[in-house]
């Protein structure tokens, strides 16, 4: 934000640097269940962003003092690979990734039915392989698909999307240059079923009406992303849907030695 530059972010036709209209998303692709050892996982490509999310648990929470006797805790680690940005990113947690980890775990805690698994921990790992603005939204979107893939009980998926302001115009889903040289960036996450907001941040300055417009844009786009998430999960379990599952009724049935 705030950096001055003479790049024209919007051309005379009203199109952006990558040819998108102001209310257009970058292409999104999600694949569920990509990791074998994780309980659940998802790989997501959002424009030039590439993000991998893995979920483990519910499992025993360590260290013990983190355990909550009434509910599970959701622990998240957002991490950027050293090669994810053009200048090498110094590995390890920094101010930014600690913050993002915190807000993502808090957003997810809102939908996961933590009360079912007291004293346990649900661990979410988000690895950013390639970054091009909007990785926190990409990470959160992937993490919620991974959680569903892991069979974790949750009230709904979480969808995240950003909107912002460039050249005094409110636009959806900022790209790298727009993020760097634009005026504001507003990432948000919602629970699509209820429209509840579970994450809202703002970098830069917006007028009240601009903020509302940005939020509305991002929320509408979230519904599109929600469909992509559901589609990814359906594709992963497609075979199951057609199958006759008689055996599941005998879940209580027991083998005799």
């Amino acid at each position, binding site marked *: 934000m705030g950096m001055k530059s003479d790049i024209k972010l919007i051309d005379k036709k009203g199109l952006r640097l990558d040819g998108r209209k102001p209310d257009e998303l970058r292409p999104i692709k999600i694949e569920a269940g990509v990791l074998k050892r994780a309980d659940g996982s998802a790989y997501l490509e959002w424009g030039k962003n590439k993000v991998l999310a893995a979920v483990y648990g519910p499992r025993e929470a360590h260290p013990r003092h983190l355990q909550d006797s009434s509910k599970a805790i959701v622990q998240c680690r957002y991490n950027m690979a050293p090669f994810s940005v053009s200048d090498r990113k110094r590995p390890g947690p920094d101010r930014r990734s600690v913050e993002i980890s915190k807000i993502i775990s808090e957003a997810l805690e809102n939908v996961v039915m933590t009360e079912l698994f007291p004293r346990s921990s649900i661990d979410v790992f988000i690895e950013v392989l390639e970054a091009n603005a909007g990785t926190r939204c990409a990470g959160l979107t992937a993490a919620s698909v991974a959680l569903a893939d892991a069979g974790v009980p949750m009230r709904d998926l979480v969808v995240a999307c950003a909107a912002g302001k460039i050249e005094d115009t409110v636009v959806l889903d900022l790209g790298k240059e727009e993020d760097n040289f634009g005026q504001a960036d507003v990432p948000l996450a919602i629970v699509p079923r209820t429209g509840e907001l579970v994450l809202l941040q703002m970098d830069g300055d917006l007028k009240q009406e601009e903020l509302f417009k940005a939020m509305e844009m991002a929320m509408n786009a979230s519904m599109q992303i929600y469909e992509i998430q559901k589609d990814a999960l359906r594709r992963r*379990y497609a075979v199951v849907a057609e199958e006759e599952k008689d055996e599941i009724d005998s879940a209580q049935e027991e083998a005799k030695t």
Partner: protein
Amino acid sequence: MNEEKPSVKRELVLPGEVVDTTGLRPGVGTYAENGTIYAAQLGIKNISKNYVNVFPLNGRYIPRYGDKVIGIITEAGASSWLVDINSPYPAPLHVNDVPWKVEFGNTPAYLKVGDTVLVKIDGVDEAKHVRVSMKEQGLRKLSGGNIIEIPASKVPRVIGKGGSMINLLKEHTGCRVFVGQNGRIWIDGDVDGIALAIRAIKKIDEEAQTIGLTDKIREFLEKESENIRRN
């Protein structure tokens, strides 16, 4: 949803999707809000009696009272053992709950760290403190044999309807097989039999999502046991 009462065709549902609005009761894997029932888990929708259920396709084993599970001893204390039952919660096994008379501090003489046991979930409280017991017919220390793990949600597939799959396995491999509800399977028999049983179970695990699984496995077992006999 466009489905009527007894659901014969199984339908995949995702968390947050509406599973019923017709006034059925929320069963497992669902939650109700303002009279509408939603899926709480990714799974297969099922309607039985007045309940809508969502049977999970994935997920960890959560202990339930009465389940028979295969545990591994992880710690031997003075008057109890700690058993790993493949769930988020380790389960203590008290010396009063074993069929032997154990003197105080003498626990390792009966069960050592690493031993496997067949135990019953004897109690789960609201904070998910689990207790296990060995005081019932058939519960014992498992010696010999092999143990393999599959996701707990696929246990019903290995057992099959009315035990059809498990009987098939026993018949063709000549092994003794026990399937714990926590997804651990104990197999004992001759080397070839065990190897075949493990391959068959791996196949069930991988192809748990295909149609006519029991027939497929029967075919596989018949072909393979024929091969073994010939060699």
